[in-house]
Each structure stands twice: as structure tokens, then as C-alpha cells.
């Protein structure tokens, strides 16, 4: 690796971090406004998450007396850093130089990395020495195990299908972005993919700890659970990592299911910059649509599950759904 590419990678990393933080907070604000409008409220301004962040940063950072300080303070940093790291692997729009670490990672790596922010929260919760946080940390671990089955089945379905088509790197995200799977399957496989899409849409609230899968934080039950002892800077870092994770998870769905660019449909030939900008805007639009249907609408239209029900839903209902989807994709390949 020569100096120029190293410099480019560093610059790209910084750029992606800034993009992730800004877009994440902005989408969080949008989510809040839309939720408020659907509940017939006016709601906060879209920039409210930025205001909240600024407020949290000037607040006192309290470390409880019976917490383990290095772990308690380290966990938020780890959560944010790992969330930004995933962002470097995910293909976004057809922008030059994206993803930053294109050649180094694949789907399996992303699946592992997706666990890290959650684990950091668990570590932070367990180290904070509060019974509510301990209950929350236990619930978070259970939730992570629960949504892993439908998530893994979906990823396997994609990789398996791509492996069938003799591409070089079936697990690579660049391959995924270049080959929309919908075009490779017949009607049965199409139905299978629809099932997988539905599964992934419902994995997102679990990943992000939103209602109905927010048992680890459950405000009315365990008073914020994992995050109950966090305040000030540490809490700001956790909310930033959640914002970045929102972008990560939604762009993962976009990359898996909707990898098209605007230039695939409309020829914008007059100017290459305009085409790039249009693609970027189209990408943000896709993120917004996924976010609306998987987070905003879901979180306000149902009640919270008990932790046992979270496991039931993820393993029995969504697990079955994703396995059926996987089976349909396989059957489709056999028929054709």
C-alpha cells in the first residue's frame, strides 16, 4: 500500500465518520418528526438530535461509585468506533472511492462487526453496577442471540445464490452491489426474496433497540435498562453510535435488496458530477424509505414485547419466515 492510497483511506474514513454522524442524527430527527405527525403531534424540529447532542456534551458525566470506571467509560467509545468501522465496508451509492475498505471485508465480517456495538453496550451496562442495567444487559444479550438466526439465514440465502452464479467473490459486498438478486431469480425465488426482505425489515428494530424489540432499554419497565446510569458525554457517544448504526443497518438493507442507482434508470449524461450527486441523493432517499418502514412505522404501531416474546418472534416467526425464504430461493435455482 503506497502513501497516496493510505492517505486516501484515512481521508475516506474521516469523511465516512462525518457522514455517518450527520446523516444518522438527521435521520433520527426525521424519524421523530414523522412519528410525531403520525401520532397527530407537531413534534420537535428535525435538528432536535443535534440540539440534544450539544446539551448532553455540556452536561456532567457521572460515573457511579460501584461502576468499573475504565469499562464504563470505554464502552461508549468502543460502540461508536465499531459502528463507524462497519460504515467503511458497506457499499453506498456508485460514488468513487466507496466503500472505503472495499477489498478487505465481506458479509460475514459485517455480521460480526454488527454485534460489536451491542456487546459494547452490554459491557457498559454490566459494568455500571445498577440492577436495572444488569437486567437490561441480560436482555440485550438474549436479543442479540435472537435476531441472529433470521439475519444469518438471509445472508446465507444471498451468498448461496451468488455462489451459484459463478462470481469471483460471492460474499463480497461489491459483488452484491453490482448484481441485484431480484434479476437472477424466477417467480418462486422472487417470493422467497420478498420473505427475506420482510424478515430483514423486522430485524432492524431489534438491531437498533427500538419498539417492539426494545426490551433491553424498556423505559417504563427498567427505566432505560442498559443506559440507566449513563449521562453526559458517555450517553452522547452511545446516542451517536445508535445514530450511526441506524445508517449502517438501513444501508445494509439497501445494499442487499435495492442496490440500483438512479443512473440505471435515467440517463444523466450531461455532466458526471450531476450524475454522482443524483445517485447520492437517490441513495439517501432509499435509506429514508427503508428507515420509515422498518423503524418509524413499526415502532409506533405496536406494543413492546416481553423478552421471551422477542425470542419467540425472532426464532419461531421470523426464523421460520427467513428459512422458508431461503428454501424458496434454493427451490427456484433447482427449477431453472
Amino acid at each position: 500500500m503506497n502513501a497516496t492510497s493510505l492517505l486516501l483511506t484515512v481521508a475516506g474514513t474521516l469523511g465516512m465518520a462525518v457522514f455517518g454522524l450527520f446523516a444518522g442524527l438527521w435521520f433520527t430527527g426525521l424519524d421523530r418528526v414523522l412519528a410525531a405527525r403520525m401520532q397527530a403531534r407537531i413534534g420537535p424540529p428535525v435538528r432536535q438530535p443535534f440540539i440534544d447532542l450539544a446539551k448532553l456534551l455540556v452536561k456532567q458525566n457521572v460515573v457511579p461509585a460501584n461502576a468499573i470506571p475504565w469499562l464504563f467509560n470505554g464502552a461508549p467509545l468502543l460502540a461508536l468506533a465499531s459502528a463507524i468501522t462497519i460504515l467503511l465496508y458497506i457499499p453506498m451509492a456508485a460514488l468513487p472511492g466507496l466503500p472505503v475498505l472495499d477489498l478487505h471485508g465481506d458479509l460475514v465480517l459485517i455480521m460480526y462487526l454488527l454485534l460489536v456495538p451491542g456487546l459494547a453496550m452490554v459491557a457498559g451496562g454490566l459494568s455500571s453496577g445498577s440492577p436495572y442495567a444488569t437486567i437490561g444487559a441480560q436482555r440485550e444479550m438474549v436479543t442479540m442471540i435472537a435476531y441472529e438466526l433470521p439475519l444469518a439465514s438471509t445472508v446465507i440465502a444471498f451468498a448461496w445464490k451468488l455462489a451459484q452464479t459463478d462470481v469471483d467473490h460471492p460474499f463480497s459486498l461489491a459483488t452484491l452491489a453490482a448484481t441485484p438478486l431480484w434479476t437472477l431469480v424466477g417467480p418462486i425465488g422472487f417470493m422467497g426474496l420478498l420473505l427475506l426482505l420482510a424478515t430483514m425489515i423486522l430485524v432492524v428494530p431489534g438491531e437498533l433497540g427500538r419498539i417492539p424489540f426494545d426490551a433491553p432499554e424498556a423505559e417504563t419497565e427498567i427505566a432505560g435498562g442498559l443506559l440507566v446510569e449513563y449521562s453526559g458525554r458517555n450517553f452522547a457517544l452511545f446516542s451517536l453510535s445508535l445514530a450511526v448504526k441506524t445508517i449502517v443497518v438501513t444501508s445494509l438493507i439497501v445494499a442487499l435488496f435495492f442496490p440500483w442507482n438512479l443512473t440505471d434508470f435515467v440517463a444523466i449524461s450531461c455532466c458526471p458530477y450531476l450524475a454522482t450527486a443524483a445517485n447520492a441523493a437517490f441513495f439517501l432517499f432509499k435509506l429514508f424509505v427503508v428507515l420509515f418502514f422498518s423503524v418509524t412505522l413499526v415502532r409506533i404501531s405496536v406494543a413492546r414485547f416481553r423478552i421471551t416474546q422477542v425470542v419467540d418472534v425472532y426464532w419461531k416467526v421470523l426464523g421460520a419466515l427467513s428459512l422458508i425464504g431461503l428454501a424458496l430461493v434454493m427451490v427456484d435455482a433447482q427449477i431453472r
Partner: protein
Amino acid sequence: MKTIEVKKPSGYATQIGPAHPALKEPVMFSLDIEGERIRKADFVPGMAHRGVEWMGMRRNCIQTMYLAERICGICGITHSISFSRAVEQIAQIQVPNRAHYIRSIVGELERIHSHLLWAGVAAHELGFDSAFYLAWRVRENVMDLLEYLTGNRVHYAIIQIGGVRRDIVPDQFPRIEESMKFFEGAYAKLAAVFLDDTTVQMRCRDCGVLTTDEARELCPVGPTARASGIKKDVRVDHPYAAYGDVEIEYQTPDLLTGEVRGDVYDRIVTRLLEVKQSIGIVRQLLAMLPDGPLLAIPKPAVLLAKLKGVAGEAVGRHEAPRGEVMHYVRLEAGKDEPAAWKVKASSYSNYMAWIPMMEGEQIADIPIIAASIDPCISCTDRVALVRPDVRQIVTKEELHRLSVEKTRRIQAGLAK
């Protein structure tokens, strides 16, 4: 050789409250938990004792009326009806018929308001905030109606000893009917959201069960009792105000679902049915509203003079949205203020039902179970043991001994 004793995992103890987002008022649950499951539950009330009775016994009856109204922020008219019924019995004041009707109308509107408020709180405890906003949006209409009729949204100040202070005139009927139509539409919407929603069913069905037998032992009141299949309602059992004139039935969940399970879901069903019932009662009462005066003794000064001259004791009861409320009042001749005033709020009877409801359920169910009896904690708290360093349990015998001593002290004071 040393033997190593292998202990069974013993679970852990935790507590919820007195200050906790799930609880709108201070009460403490101490729980013995294994994993997420509650093995044993107990609660500690007595953290919001306000000394209302003490204050009431230092004010004359008219002043105490308004104090009684402020025992509860939600069922304001409940306590003022109960108190005034007690005083009216002592002074043998005959309340005019029209006043009886107006009391019942406002009482039923308050029931609609209270049950809608409860529905919102319950939805919030379940994490279902959209239903909370929906229920409270509907409630806003009944608050506006009450403001239109009585001049205030919360403390209506419409009850006076011997009648009511404000009339409902025919000009106001269309506005009331408009609201009743709105509630009918809203009832359909709320019933769909609360009863048909899959996630609400998952959370509330067979959760926090109070069986009919347990209910019979613990004697809860109001919707808590009726949801367990106990047919008990002061409005039907001992009709007062205008309730004797209207058709009124016990609202048990089997009217809608065909069975009584006594779980949280049944308590939602019962309250929703009561909203519908109240709409019907208001309509019946408006249609039959008799003519006549509003007050037995229109001049407050005359009323005060009369109350100063009477002596005796009486109990006033009212079916509050949460169940039966009881006020015991004793008046003495020559004294403006009540010699004794004892309030039994409905939640007092419902508290004990928490324990069988909670045991065996999960931590996640505590908020909704606690909310399901619609507790009104500061209305209920009557005693506070102020001895912070000693955790003391007062046994029944001890309490009895203390009461006898107190009564003797009072009687000795009276004899002087």
C-alpha cells in the same frame, strides 16, 4: 474432609419504585426475582400521605367539600359527591331531583374521562405510545365538555351540599349530544386498537390474572372486581343520585368476549364497556332531566348555620371510575368543622389484588399490572410511619390496639 454445600440458585431481590417511570405516583414494589420471573411480590404504600383528613377537620363543611374534591385529581366529583351525601344524611337535607340528575351526568362524564385517561396510561406502560396519544386526544373532548358545563376542566366545583351549583340548560344539550356522538365513534376506534391489536393481546391476555375466587377473598372494587367476574357496582346495588331511574347493568368482560379470565385484557375490556355504558346513561339522564330547583338550601350562609346545629354520623358512597368510594363523616352540634372525617378511596380496596396478579409473571409485566387496577396512590395513603431507620411492620393486633387507644383519647377529650 470438608463438605461443600451446593446451593440452589436463589434468585435476587430488587425493587421498583417509589420513584420509577412506570409508576405515576410513589409506591414501592419489593420483588423476589428469578431470572425475569417474579417469585414473590410485595408492596409498600404510605409515601404520599398528605394529611387531607386532618385539614378537613379544621374547616367548615363547605370548605371541606372543595378539599374533598382535591383528594383526587382525576375523580374530583367522586369525593365531593360522597362527602356531600354523608353530610346531607346527617342534616337530613332533601336533594332536589334535578340536582340528582346533574350530579349523575357529571359523574358519568367523569367516568368517561377517567377511563380514557387510564387507557392512555396503560398503553404507555405497554410501550404503545400511539394508542396513548389517541386515547388522550379523545379524552380532550370530554375535558372540553366538562369545562363547558362546569367551568373547569378538572376540579368541577359543581357539587354543593344539598344540590348542585350549576344548571344544565336545554341550550347545552346539542353540544353534549355532539360529544356523545364523537365518543361513539371514538369507542369503536379505541376498541379496535386495544382489543384487536395482536401485540396488545400478546402482552395482556393471561397476564396478571386475578381469578374469581381470589377476587372474592380480597374484595376489590370497581372494574378490578368486575373484570374478575364479581358483579358489584354501587350504582346498581344501592342506587343513589339518579341511578335508580336509569337502566344500568354490571359491566363484566363476558358481555363482549363471552368469558371471564380476570387478566389485564379483561380489565381493558371492562373499562371500555363502561365508557360505552356511560354514553348511554348520559343520554338517558338528559332525556329525563326533571324540572325543579338546584339546591335544597340556596343560601350558603343559611346552609352553614344549619350544619352548625346538627349532630350525627353518616357514610356517603359513590361508584368512582375505580370502584366504590366511601366517606365517613361525623358532625357535632355547635361546631362548624366535621368532628371526624374518614375517606376510603377505591384503590385502597384494590391494592391487595396486586400480589396474586404479580406473582409468577415477568418483570416486564409489572408496569401494566400495576396500572391495571388504575391505582390512585395519593388518594389512598392515610398513614405514614415516620421512622426512617426502623422498618416496622404493624400487625393487625397492634393496629387494633392503637385504634382503641386513639378512640379512648378522643372520647376523653370529648367528655371534658
